[in-house]
């Protein structure tokens, strides 16, 4: 029944290990973003599904966008932490998403773990690229493919080098203790560890 998540895992290399630090959280959010963007793309066209469904997906996408914008300053401690105690590196997410999209568009092998190569604790957090964030808005998706969109974005600042900053308690929707991720990610962890 957890069909979507299982399919996602099967896309990844078999011996890959999921880490439940910020990388795992980002993967989950990326999956959600990917699913939403895919739905929006598929819903454009003459035989579009219902307006209600379209509006609900649009609103969900906007929430994702807002959450990415709200992600506070970076620097994650080097040790893997419990879910929810870490912060969320916006640049790492953007970088990961871009890398993965470029990879899938080139139709090369799927990366083992889209976020594994990133050292989350060492990222600088530049301001989120407004062009990228606008890409999340479905208004654009009808006009041009995702390809055109992301290739224009300069990712050089994202794949970056170290700067440590003091850890900050998370403010975003994602990381508040007791918020939804605990339940959802706990469940995901059960599935991964149990299988």
């Amino acid at each position: 029944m957890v069909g979507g998540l299982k399919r996602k895992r099967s896309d990844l290399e078999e011996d890959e290990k999921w880490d439940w630090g910020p990388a795992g959280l980002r993967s989950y959010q990326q999956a959600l973003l990917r699913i939403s963007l895919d739905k929006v793309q598929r819903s454009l066209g003459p035989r579009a599904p219902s307006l209600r469904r379209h509006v609900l997906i649009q609103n969900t996408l906007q929430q994702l966008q807002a959450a990415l914008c709200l992600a506070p300053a970076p620097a994650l401690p080097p040790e893997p932490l419990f879910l929810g105690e870490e912060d969320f590196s916006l640049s790492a997410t953007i970088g990961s998403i871009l890398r993965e999209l470029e990879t899938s568009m080139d139709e090369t092998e799927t990366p083992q773990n889209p976020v594994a190569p990133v050292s989350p604790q060492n990222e600088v957090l530049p301001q989120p690229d407004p062009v990228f964030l606008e890409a999340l808005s479905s208004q654009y998706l009808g006009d041009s493919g995702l390809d055109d969109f992301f290739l224009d974005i300069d990712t050089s600042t994202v794949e970056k080098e170290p700067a440590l900053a003091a850890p900050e308690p998370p403010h975003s929707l994602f990381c508040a203790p007791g918020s939804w991720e605990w339940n959802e990610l706990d469940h995901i962890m059960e599935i991964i560890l149990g299988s």
Partner: protein
Amino acid sequence: MAGAGGGGCPAGGNDLQWCFSQVKGAIDEDVAEADIISTVEFNYSGDLLATGDKGGRVVIFQREQENKSRPHSRGEYNVYSTFQSHEPEFDYLKSLEIEEKINKIRWLPQQNAAHFLLSTNDDLRINLWHLEITDRSFNIVDIKPANMEELTEVITAAEFHPRQCNVFVYSSSKGTVRLCDMRSSALCDRHSKFFEEPEDPSSRSFFSEIISSISDVKFSHSGRYMMTRDYLSVKVWDLNMESRPVETHQVHEYLRSKLCSLYENDCIFDKFECCWNGSDSAIMTGSYNNFFRMFDRNTRRDVTLEASRENSKPRASLKPRKVCTGGKRKKDEISVDSLDFNKKILHTAWHPAENIIAVAATNNLYIFQDRIN
């Protein structure tokens, strides 16, 4: 009024023994889209039962007179009439086939002085029809924004008040209900009452709005309450209290941890309906795996039953079903991961006076009744 549906008898789902009565429809493994039932409705007396399907076909069943030679079975429902509501059309300009799906059937109330009907097939408008004027309608609610890109909310259901013919409600994709009085203004863009439950911050997620979207709204027969169905629950509202529902019944709370998957496979957008029994003491709604749920408002008990061909022996009692939500699965329980999400019961109807229910399971119509004591 005689019958188990009247006052004084426990008319809830749990004090009764539900038995299989009839099933209509083909047994094919591959179900054609056109044969999927999209609406089920008893008429005001319960003698007629109408179904509509996605192919535009309407079937009316009529209840047979009581059969003295078979006193244990109430009158059966047999086909009275079948007709095609409208033929599929092709829009040559857009090269689009226009769907002929029947969205809803409403029997005309026997004693409705107003003789009006609401139509809400459009997500953005509600139109009012007079029964004697069939070539035009009067628009009473219009939420279409000037710029469609600003649209963030749509109408999901609407219903007239059963006793006050000038009052109606409509629900939205954001989990709100507006009650409007047509005497206030011609265009009911201003509501008289606004029903919304405050969000619980501890359960907030990206899916909060989607699961709060109301898929059905039904007034109680008394007109004092209304019931709303969202993805995980049914809520009963007192029309005099807008701030929160007076009752919340969980339909399948075990799905809350599966919302990501349900979002991905689109099940989260399924629109379940709900219904009251004749005395308003019980409510019923559908779920997945061909399960449907009944809630007794007096005893606060609930039961899960299944519509399946395996339990289709005449007068066979329906055995309550249970979903295992964690820990060791007991015998006869079904685990959440084993549920069939393609078998969904979206449409159910309860006889207005007796304990007879009609349950639509994809292309089959099941009729159940309580065992006569």
